[in-house]
């Protein structure tokens, strides 16, 4: 076992697997589906143009591919939504996501550089906000938690600002 020789026994450490994750409001799923729907609609229009231009075979083929990909995306979004969640502990924040490709990311507060909240026009309509947290680890470790309730996002940002400032 890897931790046999460490000064801290494993039982004393906090276990991430014990933590409870906070889920997104249902409206976030609707937002995500809407964004996907817009994208696929644009694709459908493009296929329709191809069809009207006379390329029947190409249009039918791409329509079939379109349908398959759309179904896949719908399934992963809807089922994957249950997987999404964030967990706030005393010293770090964790986010998990992904149905087929599961990803768990944890940022310790004493390594956070700063955080930002943003709202696109669609998000504003759904009364949701995105929180972006930046570390020194570069783009791959910058955490973006979308689809948060507005007040929740504000409180989270303030909390993070407070804990990361106290660590400087």
């Amino acid at each position, binding site marked *: 076992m*890897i*931790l046999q*020789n460490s000064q801290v026994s494993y039982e004393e450490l906090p276990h*991430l697997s014990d933590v409870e994750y906070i889920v997104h409001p249902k409206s976030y799923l609707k937002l995500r589906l809407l964004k996907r729907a817009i994208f696929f609609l644009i694709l459908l229009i493009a296929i329709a143009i191809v069809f009207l231009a006379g390329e029947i075979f190409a249009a039918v083929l791409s329509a079939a591919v379109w349908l398959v990909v759309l179904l896949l995306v719908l399934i992963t979004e809807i089922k994957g939504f249950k997987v999404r969640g964030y967990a706030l502990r005393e010293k770090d924040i964790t986010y998990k996501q992904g149905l087929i490709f599961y990803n*768990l990311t*944890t940022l310790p507060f004493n*390594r956070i550089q700063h955080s930002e909240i943003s709202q696109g026009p669609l998000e504003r309509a759904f009364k949701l906000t995105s929180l972006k947290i930046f570390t*020194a680890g570069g783009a*791959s470790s910058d955490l973006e938690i979308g689809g948060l309730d507005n007040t929740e996002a504000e409180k989270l940002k303030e909390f993070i600002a407070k804990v990361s400032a106290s660590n400087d």
Partner: protein
Amino acid sequence: MTDFDFKVPQQQHVLAVVVYFFKNLRNLINGLLPLIAFAAIKPGSFYILAGAIILGVILNCVFAWLQHKNFSFYVDNRELIINKGVFVKDRIAIPLERVQTVQLHQNIIQKALNLFAVKVDTAGSKAEELEIPALETHKARAFQEMLRKEKAKIISDVPDVDQGIISEENGEEDHVIDLVKLDILKLLKVGVTENHIRRGLLVLAIIFGYASQYQSIFDNYVEPWFEENYAKIASFSITVVLVGIIVFLILSTVLSLIITILKHYNFKAILKHGLIDIEEGLLKRNEYRIPLNKVQFLEWRSNPLRKIWDIETVRIFQSQSAEQKRKQSIEIPACEKRETRIILKEVFEEDPEAVYNSIETHKFTYTLFHFYILGIPLLLFTSVVWYFDYYSSIPILLLLFISMILVAYKNGQKMKVESNGELLSIRKGWIFPVRIVIPIYKIQALQKNQSIFLLRKNLAHLNVITASGDRTIRFLNSREVDKLYDYILAKVEMHKGPWM
């Protein structure tokens, strides 16, 4: 050491004019090469070309002199001020806190004139690379020392005191630890064990890059010749192509050897004043200074030839902001086991008694994964080959596939992550072994990744994120990953003080 008062505006050595001349010349040539080449080929343009060259040289001389006259630098009120520019006059003021390191470099011209280029590395979002292109040796060193002392003063908030009165420094002055030194024999070993093929391809790419600029010449002159002699060329057999490849390989190896020896000539790495100080180079003398606290992790690499001679290449990865174009890693080309122990002790304070416990990769799944990754394109390739009736190559492809799977299996066997409690060590690679050592407190964030297939097998990938890049260990037991994950987080979160 002669005392220089850097509080008063300083100028470079008068021979800076020569340095500027050649600098301008190089920029000019790079920009105008196609034009010059074209003009050189066109008949009758000789006199125009000669005239243009003479005019260019005269203008360059004048411009270089003006560049030197307009360049001055000094330190004032905790800021480094540089004034430069002929038409557009720049005044650059850098607060001394933002100065990270000061490094001395020498190209051939500067070496011949006994001058140094001083490069000042700064922190902050803008990739400001400040350079003083031509100072005499002792002045450059004095400037380097002065900046270092000024920085140290600012950090410890001591009121402005004259140089030399700070007595605490003297103890530190003498404390120099040798890390790595390369003699000519080691240098040859380094040269022989470098990756020559890649170098050769790079050189080829550069040549083609220049050659593409001559496209117009090719169209007008080369192509007609080509068409005339096409018949002769087409009759060249496979043997000529093979000979060509062999010649290429030999040339690229020799070239790479020469480049390596020139690049790393007289390599010296020492630890001094909390900095890793590296000097190397024959025609171009380079110096790299890395503050210890900027080192994020180290990577040791080896290959079969290096294993025979018991040397490894060490790469020092330092932190940098996203916009900086500075080299992400600095290389120590050859390091013995003994020197590795010293480096681990001095740079990472490794406890030589501490035991490393490890989690090993599930080699079967690792191999299976590569089986699919290699197998699918191979299957496609084989079907194409089958379609075109090149049956004879199929056994070779099969052999290639089997050997790649075997190598994947051995790689899976070697891949593991281990820890002594303070340091994290990732090992991978069989033919080309790699070892990455990261102090746990330097870790910025952690990620656990599992595809749906891995979830079912209870395996996961662990991604360790640092300020100098990510490193991943794949196909580990999921439960073990959780434990290591918790441990690393606890260690990072318990760490008091700056991580840099």
